């Protein structure tokens, strides 16, 4: 939602990044204010996922130019764990499996680490159990899920729900959802979207990275950006996603910037 007295959470300017010497991001610009939901769309290879990983600080990518300010701080000089503790959250497209580590153990460690950073009390295992069970209701998750190994043998839907559960626990300022809709059937998609909707408020912001319009039926974005060859080539309101759905990405190439809506 666009609010009048919003503050700038993220400001990306002229961002260039490469992996193994190949430049993927070629001048990204993006401003995200509190309360807003931004969708970044584009074909495979346009750089959407790279953008998400670069914001979170993946070590395989090298930033070669540009700046990223997060709540006024230079995000690029922070290691990934500090970005996370500062409130940047990435919901992974492919969450990793951690055999032998109970989900509850992992979630509690992450939760307590971030809590400590924010000067709040840690929760002991029993307190945490109550707390996490409450949050799990948001995503319609079964209790046995806590005792299972992190993401091991999880279905696609369970993995994505687990990501959103972590988002619920860590209460980030900026959530980046990388293709959270991929591999989800419609029921799972609704549950995940409903979870995200309950977590968004006027103090935080969300970036949805997605290939398809489908997700945006359930999480309605304030802005839709289209990426091509490493930068945003078109920006519009939520109706842009529908336009893309009917006309396809080819249509962008010939109409770059021509229908871009007015963006603050």
């Amino acid at each position, binding site marked *: 939602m666009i609010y009048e007295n919003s503050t700038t959470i993220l400001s990306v300017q002229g961002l260039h990044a490469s992996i193994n010497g190949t430049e993927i991001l070629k001048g990204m610009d993006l401003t995200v204010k509190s309360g807003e939901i931004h969708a970044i769309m584009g074909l495979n290879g346009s750089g959407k996922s790279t953008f998400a990983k670069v914001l979170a600080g993946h070590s395989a990518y090298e930033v070669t130019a540009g700046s990223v300010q997060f709540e006024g701080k230079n995000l690029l000089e922070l290691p990934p764990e500090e970005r996370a503790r500062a409130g940047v959250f990435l919901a992974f497209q492919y969450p*990793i499996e951690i055999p032998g580590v109970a989900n509850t153990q992992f979630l509690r460690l992450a939760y307590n680490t971030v809590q400590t950073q924010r000067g709040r009390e840690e929760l002991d295992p029993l307190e945490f159990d109550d707390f996490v069970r409450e949050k799990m209701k948001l995503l319609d998750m079964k209790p046995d899920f806590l005792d299972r190994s992190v993401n091991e043998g999880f279905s696609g839907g369970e993995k994505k729900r687990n990501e959103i559960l972590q988002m619920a626990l860590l209460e980030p300022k900026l959530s980046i959802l990388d293709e959270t809709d991929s591999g989800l059937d419609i029921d799972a998609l609704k549950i995940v979207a409903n979870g995200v909707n309950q977590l968004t408020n006027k103090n935080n912001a969300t970036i949805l990275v997605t290939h398809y319009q489908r997700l945006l039926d359930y999480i309605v974005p304030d802005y839709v950006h289209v990426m091509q060859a490493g930068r945003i080539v078109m920006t519009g309101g939520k109706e842009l996603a529908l336009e893309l759905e009917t006309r396809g990405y080819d249509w962008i190439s010939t109409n770059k910037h021509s229908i871009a809506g007015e963006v603050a």
Partner: protein
Amino acid sequence: MSAVLQSLVNQPYKHGFVTEIESDIAPKGLNEDTIRLISAKKNEPEWLLSFRLKAYQKWLTMTEPDWQNVQYPKIDFQAISYYSAPKPKKKLASMDEVDPELLRTFEKLGVPMHERAALAGVAVDVIFDSVSVATTYKQKLAEVGIIFCSISEAVHNHPELIQKYLGSVVPVGDNYFAALNSAVFTDGSFCFIPKGVKCPMDLSTYFRINTESSGQFERTLIVAEEGASVSYLEGCTAPKFDTNQLHAAVVELIALDDADIKYSTVQNWYAGDENGVGGIYNFVTKRGLAKGRNSRISWTQVETGSAITWKYPSCILRGDNSVGEFYSVAVTNNYQQADTGTKMIHLGKNTRSTIVSKGISAGHSNSSYRGLVRIAPTADGARNYSQCDSMLIGDQCGAHTFPYIQVRNNSAKVEHEASTSKIGEDQLFYFSQRGIDAEEAVSMIINGFCKDVFQQLPMEFAVEATKLLSFKLEGSVG
């Protein structure tokens, strides 16, 4: 490889320590005279001398094995001194006299208080207000008829048992290093649990602290009679340094009808420096004979030290319905090499065996699992389940699996599962994106990976082993 990974891999070994021991050392070299000298020094009976000489004659005809997946310069067996009688060490009067560096190591590893004292050479009586832990345990054990003493003592006090069982599971000519051990072993532990007795506590060599150190050719013999059971702990998490590079121990376990022997090892010998210089060669023969019906032999090992580890704790399942188990975690870092695994020899009917092996390699190290499951024609209804998982940290290390399966009875069921995984940037990125730093992430991944083995360890040992692993791999990812 990322800088973080690099830095974790290149952590030096900080906690080795040397104990200056004055000793009475035999001239270097091995011949019949050396063996006669050892036997005479130890005042051994004639039968034991001939056991040693027979082993020596056998050893002369054998050649050093070279099939294992490890490399090391040829050992000059004539350059080793085979007998060294340690003079009793001066006991320290209190913990205040112990090297603070040593205490910090114990602290870091979480070694229990009474063990710290023992390991540091403090007279236990002083620490615990005249209630000696060792004495208390000894009394308790004696009450139920359990014999737990050094092999040397047992040779004199219980010759009939030693004569009956020594070499009955690992014959003198079993393999090159076992033959060498049989010829020159200096000391070790003997444990005898009589019929129907459940040993009331875990037995550990800590409780034999007043006896001499066992030297480089250690010999252990454990016998559990009908219906008896025992859990035995070998080694400790505290790092051990030794000037003897070659260690060739032999461990024999015998379980009669309905008997149960659980043998747990935590091995943390000096592994050499970060360039692979120095370190112990640990060439061990461990074998259990599940001789009686419904008997069980269970090996659990956490191998973290030594430059080279070469050991295959095995089970011969002779009794019908007998059970063999092998749970192993082997960690190698820097230039360490480990070739370890097990042999499960199924002879009796309905015998069952389980193998769970977890190999973790970091740095430039190499870790191999080598295992044999043999189902003899007599072993109707035998079952085996094997699981061999390897984890790689960084991209300079190696993991190898050599499973041998020989099934000669078509009613048998044998399952083998294997996996290899890698702690890479993507895993660490996932943790760091949740605010968790690399050290903690690695510790969590490793402990999860080893969970199936750690839960087999006695409680206290399990806690120590968990810490030890984090400690060994500290700095190897990040």
